[in-house]
């Protein structure tokens, strides 16, 4: 029987940094999107899922959320909500798309939307600090069994962060499941999950459903 290494579970957390800068209106958002350093954009698009935001938010990124809730610009919010930074060919391309969308919106509206005082978009940058949780899984069934209790932060690290740091095509779980002999259909199904548009709890449930389907003997089958 072919041997393979165990799955090494990492936990992680964000260290968030305030810039002391904020946007109050759409023009300021455009300027910010043109000039902020990459880690700021990365935070508001990708890492914000790990922020202390409310998980049941409507949109997967801060920009769409702020346009909807702060500016009341539903049209732009819908447009930015559809943006998928993992499928957009890198951060420079994402930035260009956002700048284009905001600029285009500014051309078409009569008045520049402003937010109420207190509802500004405060610019933040962040850094992921990851560490070995000391948990190891030697079989897909063992991973399935533990899946309901791994932290949402671990899920972020092994899915979102894995896509960001890798080739953007796979996450740590499915890469390991593949070498651990999981059925190709299971791996395919896992990779087809639209992870960016799910919050982390929804994502966990979705993966647990895949475990239940393919490894019905695992505990995920009953605890989901």
């Amino acid at each position, binding site marked *: 029987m072919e041997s393979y290494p165990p799955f090494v579970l990492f936990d992680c957390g964000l260290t968030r940094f305030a810039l*002391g800068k904020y946007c109050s209106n759409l023009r300021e958002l455009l300027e910010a999107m043109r000039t902020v350093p990459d880690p700021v954009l990365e935070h508001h698009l990708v890492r914000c899922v790990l922020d202390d935001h409310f998980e049941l938010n409507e949109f997967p990124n801060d920009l769409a959320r702020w346009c909807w809730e702060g500016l009341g610009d539903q049209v732009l919010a819908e447009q930015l909500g559809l943006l998928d930074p993992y499928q957009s060919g890198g951060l420079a391309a994402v930035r260009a798309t956002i700048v284009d969308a905001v600029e285009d919106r500014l051309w078409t509206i009569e008045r520049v939307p402003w937010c109420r005082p207190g509802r500004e978009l405060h610019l933040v940058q962040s850094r992921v600090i990851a560490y070995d949780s000391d948990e190891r899984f030697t079989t897909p069934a063992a991973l399935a069994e533990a899946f309901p209790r791994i932290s949402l932060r671990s899920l972020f690290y092994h899915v979102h962060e894995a896509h960001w740091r890798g080739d953007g095509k796979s996450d740590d779980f499915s890469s390991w499941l593949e070498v651990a002999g999981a059925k190709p259909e299971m791996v395919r199904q896992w990779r087809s999950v639209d992870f960016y548009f799910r919050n982390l709890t929804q994502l966990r449930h979705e993966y647990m459903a895949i475990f239940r389907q393919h490894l019905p003997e695992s505990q995920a089958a009953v605890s989901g």
Partner: protein
Amino acid sequence: MGLLDRYEEVVGHQEVRRLRHLAERVAGKRIVHVNSTRTGGGVAEILGWMVPLFNELGLETRWEVIAGPPDFYRVTKSFHNAIQGLPVNLKRGDFELHNEVNRQNAERLNLEADAVFVHDPQPGYLPHFTPKGRVKRWVWRCHIDAARPNRAVWKYLEKAVPMYDATIFSMAAFARPLPRPMFIIPPSIDPLSDKNCPIPEAERLETLGRHGIDADRPLLLQVSRFDRFKDPLGVIDAFRLLKPYYPELQLVLAGGSADDDPEGAEVLKEVMERAGSEKDLKVLLLPPDAHRTINALQRSATIILQKSLREGFGLTVTEALWKGKPVIGGATGGIALQIHDYQTGFLVYSPAGAAYRVRYLLRYADKRQRMGKIGHEFVKEHFLLVRHLRDYLKVLLYLDHPGMETLVV
């Protein structure tokens, strides 16, 4: 049983284990926290649990308190107000006094450590007077909303910032551009403290009885200082708008005694006048240690209000959500981070808005229950002290490995 083990029943064994694991990366460091008082106030409350828990996590942690003459505290109280943007009248001599007291304390206190966390502006100039090499890293922890400070005071405090390695603010919205990294660490609540722990049903009912509150009728509650920014008059107005539709409704405004706060006493007087002789409206003046009373009131409320016009983080909202209550709050400061329409409560912009949302929630018990559940989980994930500890550990890790790329330790 260790102190941290007690939290396992709240956040789970795994979560405490993960915290211990993270702490191993910085274990053995010598940490000092410095503030200006050992009792009273939010900072002392935080350090009261943080210092022993840091020690249990393997960090050699001490808590030092600066000392100064009464005039020093008058000056630092003015600093506090000035950082929040209130007008203050300070003279050159006041700044000199602040400097001198910091110099004396730098000589007096044992600050030798790998990292010193300086809380708020009172001890802000300690790094300036501490011999080089005694402290490896200085971190200034600002607990105050510094978004719109008084210029003169901020200019004075800002001069101390380059002596620090980093700063910490509670929310991005509370920070101003500074030449050092500005970490964001929101405050947290202790789920096992008297204010937040589960309490026996008999004690809850006894508390209601003692204050003349009917346990069988719906109860609205706002817990806050008698301060205009908390809009207690707006809450009374909202209650009056509701009373014709819900004659059985009760309102309790609970806050601390305002004896030592001239403005608080004035607001309290206005509140009493507006409340009049309405028997279902109670204004409770509670002593500073009435944590269990507040706990019982929050657990008894049908809906909790925090109708602030201006707010810091709004920990009373966090406490209410933790107790599974829907919250109706003013759309300001940290309240807007915690309340999400139709999910954990409602953000409102006027007394009429508050009345409208209360009417909705009184009508639907199932929605109140659902919101309470979501709010409790939200707080559990983000605003309990375990997360707070984790954030401080990450600051220490960052200081050892600065940079913006993902750090794997």
